[in-house]
């Protein structure tokens, strides 16, 4: 079998040399396509992380009016716990809220020094097992959406003792829609690029076959099987797509290290993709590259299938 394998690789190398420029074009298109493909998956992953962070500890915050009357907290807690989907209700008194505030804005003295604890509101933090239960809480407390002049909205409530309810639902919905649009459009571009990569690789193979039509004709005459004729070209396509895949993976790591990791300092609250998120993409990118090569091979050599 050894000379056979050697034969295939020698023929493949000869093909790549002969068609250098076109092979390079095919490789770089595969690279761009696979890079965008991986990028769309990474963007989707990033949004998934953000959404999980936000919905994973979905808390509805019911801010209480000052001063908090005795009895308000147990009354509201009891009411809220009756709703299905409410897992836990916690009372955050002024001390606890203030500590949390100081922790959040640690290192930013402009906020911490100018905000006395007395202005920080107390609240009931409600942990939901389902995001959809949010509307039940607002209707229970008789809240209505009030638009503020700056475009923000919050829930103004009729229930005595309640100042307002922080509305995350709209934010979550918007985020979800944004995620979907962004990753769908990047994915769409990736699919178009993959199609053009297939076209270019197929074209390279076809040009290679055309350049060697005399050789192929002789191979047919002396009784070479179709596979023996085609395999070098298939390997050629596979090599081009795989080189594209390897550079695309390298490109994704570069993006991760030089772009994503730079954000880590500026936005500490934002969950970011890790190296392992890129690593789990690798088999998918290689798989997509193999798919490109196989489809390109099938298209590129269709005309040469007849004996």
């Amino acid at each position, binding site marked *: 079998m050894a*000379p*056979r394998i050697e*034969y295939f690789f020698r023929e493949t190398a000869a093909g790549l040399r002969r068609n250098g420029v076109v092979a390079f074009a095919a490789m770089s298109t595969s690279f761009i396509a696979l890079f965008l493909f991986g990028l769309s998956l990474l963007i989707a992953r990033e949004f998934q992380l953000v959404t999980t962070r936000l919905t994973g500890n979905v808390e509805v915050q019911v801010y209480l009016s000052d001063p908090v009357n005795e009895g308000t907290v147990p009354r509201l807690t009891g009411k809220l716990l009756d709703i299905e989907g409410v897992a836990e209700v916690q009372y955050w008194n002024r001390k606890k809220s203030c500590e949390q505030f100081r922790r959040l804005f640690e290192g930013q003295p402009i906020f911490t020094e100018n905000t006395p604890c007395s202005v920080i509101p107390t609240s009931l933090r409600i942990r939901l097992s389902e995001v959809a239960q949010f509307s039940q809480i607002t209707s229970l407390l008789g809240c209505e959406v009030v638009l503020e002049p700056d475009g923000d909205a919050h829930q103004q409530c009729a229930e005595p003792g309640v100042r307002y309810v922080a509305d995350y639902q709209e934010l979550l919905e918007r985020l979800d829609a944004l995620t979907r649009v962004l990753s769908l459009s990047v994915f769409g571009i990736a699919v178009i690029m993959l199609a053009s990569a297939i076209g270019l690789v197929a074209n390279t193979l076809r040009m290679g076959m055309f350049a060697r039509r*005399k*050789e192929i*004709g*002789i*191979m*047919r*005459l*002396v*009784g*070479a*099987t*179709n596979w*023996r*004729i085609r395999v070098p070209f298939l390997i050629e396509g596979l090599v081009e797509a795989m080189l594209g895949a390897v550079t695309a993976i390298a490109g994704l790591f570069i993006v991760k290290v030089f772009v994503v990791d730079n954000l880590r300092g500026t936005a500490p609250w934002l969950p970011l993709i890790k190296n392992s998120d890129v690593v789990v993409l690798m088999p998918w990118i290689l798989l997509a590259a193999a798919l490109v090569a196989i489809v390109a091979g099938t298209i590129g050599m269709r005309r040469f299938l*007849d*004996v």
Partner: protein
Amino acid sequence: MISLQRVTKVYRNGVTALEDVSVEIDKGEFVFVVGPSGSGKSTMIRLLLKQEEASRGDVFVAGKNLSKITSFKVPHLRRNIGTVFQDYKLLQDKTVFENVSFALEVIGKVKHVIDQRVPEILEYVGLGDKLNAYPDELSGGEQQRVSIARACVNRPLVLLADEPTGNLDPNTSVDIMRLLDKVNRIGTTVLMATHDQAIVDAMRKRVIELEQGKVVRDQSRGVYS
């Protein structure tokens, strides 16, 4: 060895290349197929290689009915058939040795078989000293010898030659004919399409004459016309 039974070939454009042709060629025979251009000689060769299929009738080569074998088996059929053409069909970027070894390599022969057979067959056709020459360094006659070596290196049962002397001067043509005769004497069935009158007359072999796709003469020890 070769048998055409009431074979008709009509091309897709409606041209009838062969019409009701029946020919029997035994093992070890040497046969000339003669006739003017367009009489069907090349079509006959294409049918024997299964590059074309007969529209009607049956074609047998080496005991196999070509209309019955699958395209998957066609390469294996062709390994039993050597082919030689007017234009040699040599690869210019390969040496004499490589041109011949290529034929063995692409059918999966191992290196020690190649290293043994290629010099042997090149010696046989009289090019033992030109193994490393490139085709453009050779005369037409020498190039045709390389192509005959390539056709015979896998020891085919049948050698099909389509105008092998068409590009050669008379003296060189005679040398090529001597070589084909030598190949025939070791048992290879040779079918040669030609319109080289001098050669056909000199060899006194069996002659099948085609005219407008029909066999008009089939004569043993015949002449051109």
